[in-house]
């Protein structure tokens, strides 16, 4: 049996960084990824086959036929679903994980986002809590992510962000037409618009060229590698050390334990569906919030009868994402300028300090909307088909601006991931079973954010506006988080401040799972910062052959 110092499960945002940090520190690392190593050439810019509109397939994984999940609706009926079905809550499965095809917004959470309970108290029926770490703890690690993966932007016009030691390493891309429109309107209203920070080169950086501003960015791979993800930064760096072995199409099914109950390795199925077993001193789970919870729950033994880390029934709980809400406005002049990636201007005036509301969201303009993404956004009163709908799209496709934001969700204990007692995937591994919904206050905040967005669009000159507010259903998807909460108290959390599983000191969970709350921001930069933070701890506690930390 092969033995490594560390096995990292999942080559996404979190796992890619941990693998590189450990390999660079001299540990022998096995990086397992259930998806493939895709290149932009494998995934053409296809508006029906991408990670945002997956009508004909999700090219960045996972495989359509091998990975069912189960979703339970509000009436308790469960249904087996596939990757492209609504409710699957997919992110991605490939080398780079979500970072291969993401939109690349690079947000730091605000200091208050780590202190939600202290700031607002606990809304009834919620598990809202403070993080055991602060913005200041993460600040240096945010900077590492910004510099190593590469972020462009300019935070100076934003008065709300936490203290930062250095500016972003690259200037922002030149503004788009929508940017200028929203920026000037927001300024007139006394708000503080600024360019969205992006994991995207605006100038040559770290050996990769700048963005050529194409139409297909979010949901697609970048063929010039201007968009930075773990697949074109830290993972190649990890492999270059010679200490990291990347195995693709390898799905981990279970963490094993030795005779004394100490986790000592894992079982996975390789690209030929053969069952393999490896031993490792350190086990890092970075499969994203749904799959990481699944792996812990599937790791049952005499010592962990309910799964590793699940002694107090917290694994898989508090699944959350973001409640995207906002408004759409129609203009009587063209606002479309065909300049990718499209999303360009943001403001953080409404993330906190909204009277009567426990939080808020950043607001920003949308990525370029491909025609297929415009078909369901029309004003109330317009029928969604027929002559009127066709004419509406023709008249307004180039004159529509969407302003939206990821409302920070109020976590609920019953929004959760379990493993299904009956349904198994292609390899016979029990699949995630997802149930629950949103907290009612989340929808109140989302509605307030949509109204704010509408006011800005009106000030910008929109002749007609309407709100977009999602429903009550379970949230997760691309921004999935929360299922292995970080906390000091082992009875009400799954990992400690260093992402170390309570009661299984050599097992770490390093991805969005550990988020106590998910900020009013896209989560990836925080996931990356936490990956550097946890790696730093692992390296400090590594004595050359053994892991000391406890």
């Amino acid at each position: 049996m092969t033995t490594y110092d560390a096995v990292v499960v999942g080559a996404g945002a979190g796992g890619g960084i941990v693998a590189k940090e450990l390999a660079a520190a001299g540990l022998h690392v096995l990086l397992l990824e259930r998806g493939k190593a895709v290149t932009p050439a494998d995934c053409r810019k296809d508006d029906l086959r991408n990670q945002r509109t997956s009508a004909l397939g999700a090219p960045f994984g996972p495989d359509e036929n091998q990975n069912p999940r189960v979703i339970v609706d509000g009436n308790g009926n469960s249904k087996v679903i596939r990757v492209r079905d609504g409710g699957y809550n997919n992110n991605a499965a490939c080398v780079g994980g979500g970072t291969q095809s993401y939109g690349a917004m690079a947000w730091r959470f605000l200091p208050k986002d780590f202190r939600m309970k202290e700031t607002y108290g606990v809304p009834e029926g919620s598990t809202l809590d403070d993080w055991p770490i602060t913005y200041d703890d993460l600040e240096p690690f945010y900077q590492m992510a910004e510099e190593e993966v590469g972020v462009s932007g300019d935070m100076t016009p934003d008065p709300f962000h936490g203290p930062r030691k250095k500016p972003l390493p690259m200037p922002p891309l030149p503004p788009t037409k929508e940017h200028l429109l929203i920026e000037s309107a927001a300024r007139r209203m006394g708000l503080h618009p600024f360019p969205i920070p992006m994991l995207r080169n605006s100038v040559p950086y770290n050996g990769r060229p700048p963005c050529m501003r194409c139409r297909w960015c979010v949901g697609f791979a970048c063929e010039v590698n201007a968009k930075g993800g773990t697949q074109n930064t830290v993972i190649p760096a990890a492999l270059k050390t010679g200490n990291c072995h990347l195995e693709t199409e390898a799905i981990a099914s279970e963490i094993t334990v030795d005779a004394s109950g100490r986790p000592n390795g894992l079982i996975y199925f390789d690209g030929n569906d053969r069952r393999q077993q490896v031993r490792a001193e350190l086990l890092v789970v970075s499969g994203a919030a749904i799959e990481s919870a699944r792996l812990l729950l599937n790791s049952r033994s005499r010592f962990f009868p309910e799964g590793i880390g699940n002694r107090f029934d917290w694994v898989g709980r508090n699944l959350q994402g973001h409640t995207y809400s906002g408004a759409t406005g129609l203009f009587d002049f063209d606002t479309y300028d065909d300049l990718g990636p499209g999303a360009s201007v943001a403001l953080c005036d409404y993330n906190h300090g909204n009277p009567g509301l426990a939080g808020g969201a950043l607001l920003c303009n949308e990525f370029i909307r491909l025609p297929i993404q415009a078909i369901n956004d029309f004003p109330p009163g317009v029928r969604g088909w027929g002559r009127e709908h066709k004419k509406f799209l023709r008249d307004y496709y180039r004159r529509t601006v969407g302003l939206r934001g990821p409302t920070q969700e109020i976590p609920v204990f019953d929004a959760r991931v379990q493993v299904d007692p009956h349904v198994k995937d292609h390899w016979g591994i029990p699949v995630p079973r997802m149930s629950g919904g949103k907290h009612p206050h989340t929808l109140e905040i989302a509605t307030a954010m949509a109204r704010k967005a509408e006011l800005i669009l009106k000030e910008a000159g929109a002749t007609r506006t309407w709100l977009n507010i999602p429903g009550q259903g379970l949230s997760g998807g691309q921004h999935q988080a929360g299922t292995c909460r970080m906390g000091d108290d082992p009875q009400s959390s799954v990992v400690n401040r260093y992402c170390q599983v309570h009661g299984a000191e050599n097992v770490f969970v390093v991805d969005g799972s550990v988020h106590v709350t998910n900020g009013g921001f896209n989560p990836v930069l925080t996931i990356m910062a936490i990956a550097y933070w946890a790696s730093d701890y692992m390296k400090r506690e590594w004595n050359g052959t053994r892991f000391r930390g406890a």
Partner: protein
Amino acid sequence: MKRRTLLQSALSAAVLATSAGCGGARSQYRLFSATEADTLAALLNQIIPDDETPGAVGANVIRFLDRHLARAYVGHRAAYRKGLQALEDSAHAVYQRSFSALRFEEQEALVERMEKGDLPAELWGDLPPREFFRTVRTHSMQGYYGDPRHGGNQDALSWRALGVPHPPVRGRDDYYFPKQGAAAMQPLADRQRP
């Protein structure tokens, strides 16, 4: 462009030669019988009708559906069979005529009832009319507004009607720096219309 058109017509000729729909009459489609194709065409023409520009039928959305019901939409195949039959039966129940033979306004009224779920339940069995409508609407929009490479949106006609630059600009190196202030708000160059 020419080459592609040629290839496409060769392909549809081949399909024509080999397939006969299960409805008896010879069909040019792999899955749809001639009757089903007629009903579907009339339904598509309601969802995305012809006006100044061709609608779903003219953009070859039937071919798109015929192709993808054998691939990515395969799970919906049975629903199409059932739903097209139920729509046809509903037309007979309400107007005593075939759906495709109804006047545009009559078809429209029936589709509106289908969207609301207000059609004789006994004709629809376990397939709710609303769900069938939603499915066909979504798929036909995908065929019409989606990439022409999938068999619909012939010659990118919907994109051109929307004013989406096509063929697209790739590898832009002439960065566009918009002017500040009012000048930036002028319309861009005229839309490309077919």
